[in-house]
């Protein structure tokens, strides 16, 4: 009886090599539609140009200008996470190719990692024009050490939004996802102090704001950029939301079987 073939032991490809593979092809797919890349780079840069540069009080003050850049960078990263993961995953799921990929001998992890890296690449690309404008037209300034630290912080604060984006993307249709992403993104960005600095918020809004992941991320990023201390609750708030969104993403992925019809 020991001659019976054990058929299930065939080795699969390593997660790392598959993750590299999916990253490469997802980047390739994205850059073949250049408008998507340019649009992503344009929005935070234009917001900087129209809303920050003309206000000499903000633009002329090194700390305020740097904080404003940080806020818009936070918005850009949040928006990339929610749009490219939330909407992107929902759209991909509606295509027959995505369920097909799930029949290949690979788990969900490589494709997820690929999506994360692709999102990170384009989110960071989107920051380049923003940073250039801040550098050229405002008094914003950072030391190399602050810049490097901020880069790490931005990746860290993006993670909870990545979870939220994936959860939305894997639990709803593209049309529902675009509505939900917009409903979530703009109020959360506003209340998180990404468009207006939280210093000018009324007290009640400031207190509420501090419970939001967008505010926590913003405070941590501004601290890394300017040395203005974030409140002690920022890290626990971000971790709490991060855990919740991670559970949401895992739940949504597991119940997903591709497109559903009723």
């Amino acid at each position: 009886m020991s001659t019976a073939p054990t058929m299930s032991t065939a080795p699969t490809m390593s997660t790392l090599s598959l993750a590299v593979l999916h990253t490469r092809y997802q980047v390739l797919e994205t850059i073949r539609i250049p408008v998507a890349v340019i649009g992503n780079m344009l929005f935070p840069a234009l917001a900087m140009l129209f809303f920050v540069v003309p206000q000499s009080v903000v633009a002329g003050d090194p700390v305020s200008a740097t904080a404003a850049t940080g806020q818009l960078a936070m918005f850009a990263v949040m928006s990339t996470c929610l749009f490219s993961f939330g909407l992107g995953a929902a759209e991909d799921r509606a295509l027959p190719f995505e369920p097909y990929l799930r029949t290949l001998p690979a788990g969900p992890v490589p494709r997820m990692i690929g999506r994360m890296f692709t999102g990170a690449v384009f989110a960071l690309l989107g920051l380049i024009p923003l940073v250039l404008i801040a550098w050229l037209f405002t008094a914003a300034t950072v030391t190399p050490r602050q810049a490097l630290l901020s880069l790490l912080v931005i990746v860290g604060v993006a993670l909870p939004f990545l979870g939220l984006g994936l959860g939305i993307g894997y639990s709803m249709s593209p049309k529902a996802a675009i509505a939900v992403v917009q409903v979530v993104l703009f109020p959360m960005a506003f209340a998180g102090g990404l468009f207006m600095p939280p210093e000018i918020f009324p007290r009640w809004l400031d207190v509420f704001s501090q419970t939001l992941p967008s505010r926590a991320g913003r405070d941590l990023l501004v601290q890394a950029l300017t040395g203005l201390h974030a409140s002690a609750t920022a890290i626990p708030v971000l971790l709490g939301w991060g855990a919740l969104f991670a559970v949401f993403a895992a739940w949504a992925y597991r119940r997903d079987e591709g497109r559903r019809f009723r």
Partner: protein
Amino acid sequence: MTAPVIEVSHVTRRFGAVVALDDVSLAVQPGELVGMLGPNGAGKTTLLSLVNGLRKPDAGTIRLFGSDPRTPASRVRLGSTPQETGLPPTLRVAEVVDLVARHYPNPRPTKGLLEQFGLADMARRQAGGLSGGEKRRLAVVLALVGNPTLVLLDEPTTGLDVDGRHMLWGALRDYHASGGTIVLTSHYLEEVQALAERVVVIDHGHVLADDALDVVIGRVAVRRVALTLPDAADLAALRGLPGVVDVSAVGNGVNRAELLTADADALVRELVRTDTAFSDLEVRSASLEEAFLALTREVAA
């Protein structure tokens, strides 16, 4: 003793109120070439999506190479085609093939496979720019590129012209001759007849027939015979004629009947032998749908 490559036991799958598969059991042995035949919506695609791990059954178990198809390792020796012709439109043909090939430890060389399927010239073209037939062929290339021992093909030749279809059949016969196991779905009787050794007929989530090709073809290859009789009372007698599985009255005021029979020749001979007075005799092959209907009634009877 060899273990079956696919083992489906007492599987039920519902979509809301619709029962797509109802207590289906089926095993496929290594090296078999199985054709799954059934009208659209019969449950064929659902069955494949359970075998390739995309969906979970509501009840019952599925084994692929002896383990749960939801685990990636069980799918290392499985190849399948994308549903419909959904390929990433911006990737080039060679890139799509490469993306799939790199999921397997032992893939076939892309170049040779593209040549075999007449796609070598298209390697640099974006998948979105291919014709329907080219996309269909690329889908089958994707099923084979991982060097699998089992391929699941969902409607592989839908939308192909005659040449494309024959080329594809040739490639599948080669694959099977080299020891590969194939399960293909089709709603063309002709396709299943050209390829399969074993035929499984599915309708409304039930397996209606599962047997060697000739046996099943014998049961579904029915003919439709129409004739007009002088007397309405004679219609009932038609039911007793050779091979008749169904009789229906047609027309207003005329005593015209349509019979479905497995053996039209014997039926006509019998009509003549018994000196039955008939007129306007018409014999044609029944459509697959009519054959299925006949088969369903036969099972119910």
